[in-house]
């Protein structure tokens, strides 16, 4: 592919083909793009290579099985797969046995209520603005956000590692979230 990166609506179309036609070519397009990224994500969290491989396969198999549950109006494929991989990490690696059932319960609540909530459907436009906003975070905020998401460090771990007061870690994360959330809510 020599043109720009595929957007959220491209991935939604691939998911529709997987869900309705059980289309393997579409599934492998999703695999080729997302599997190495999920693999990198898990490796950065300190997961051993062989376990990361297994969890990536498990995440993609979940996608194959539960494709009918994917709702593009609710979340993009990137968001959906992030949740799946994060949940597998907490379940298998952090060994918190109650996390998965609780997340499944919250998912079902969202499904039930998605008709009643005035949630904004994710579009490629939103995602592009969010990407730009992430790229424009001040260096300290960008570092804290990455330590949080990509290294799964708690507030106190971040505070210790960077020798920052806990309150400053939290307020910096708060400011980052407000900025990033604002970018998703920008008027079109």
């Amino acid at each position: 592919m020599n043109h720009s990166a595929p957007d959220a609506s491209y991935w939604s179309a691939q998911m529709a083909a997987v869900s309705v036609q059980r289309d393997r070519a579409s599934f492998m397009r999703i695999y080729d793009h997302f599997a190495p990224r999920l693999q990198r994500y898990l490796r950065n969290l300190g997961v051993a290579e062989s376990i990361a491989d297994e969890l990536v396969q498990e995440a993609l198999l979940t996608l194959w099985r539960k494709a009918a549950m994917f709702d593009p109006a609710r979340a993009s494929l990137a968001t959906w797969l992030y949740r799946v991989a994060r949940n597998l990490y907490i379940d298998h690696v952090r060994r918190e046995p109650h996390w998965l059932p609780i997340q499944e319960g919250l998912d079902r609540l969202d499904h039930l209520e998605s008709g009643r909530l005035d949630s904004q459907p994710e579009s490629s436009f939103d995602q592009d603005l969010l990407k730009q906003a992430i790229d424009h975070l001040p260096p300290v905020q960008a570092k804290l956000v990455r330590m949080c998401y990509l290294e799964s460090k708690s507030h106190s771990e971040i505070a210790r590692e960077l020798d920052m007061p806990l309150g400053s870690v939290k307020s910096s994360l708060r400011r980052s979230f407000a900025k990033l959330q604002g970018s998703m809510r920008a008027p079109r």
Partner: protein
Amino acid sequence: MKPNRHLDDATLLSYSAGALPAALAVVASAHLERCTTCRERLLDADRIGGVLVQQQRVDVPADDARAAMLALLDAEPAEALPPAPAEIIEERNPDRLPSALHPWFGPSMRALRWRRVAPGVQRIRASGIAGGDLMLLRIAPGSKLPLHSHGGSELTMILDGAYDDLLGHFGPGDVADLDGETLHQPVTSPGVPCICVAATDAPLVFSSWMARTLQPLFGF
């Protein structure tokens, strides 16, 4: 009744990242179950995670990994949408604790076996939780707790009854999301006992000698 007091942005971000200490995550999950506002905010936080994972530079998958993946598909049937469990649709049963608390305290508020730890204060402590301390507290109506702050983070959700402190009024479903600097002295409302679930990732610090002598009683 919709909660009025919500999870802090920094707490939500950590929850989304899988980086919240386990005890705090239990209380956050219990609140999320009853709060559509925070579930919407959590989706925003998950969107950030999705983009960060996408932005990483990677290589294309190896041929043997692709072949292994394709081979696995044959054994996997498609799943239909599961029906929503009745417990979620049914009108909220006031005796039912949030699902996130069931593994630690069981499903029923009435069935709880309280232990008195100080005059007017009863407690049940979750055992075996890694990453912090998790407990239910039942405080008699109209009681004043000792002035205290927290060494780390504290997350408290009201399950029944209410209390007031310098941050305002907290009723059922509300969470108080406090960091180490907050010094507070909750006063429970008259009428029914205030039942709440509290999680900390570090011990409480009481500010007076009187309160410090109470500390072992609370066992925080």
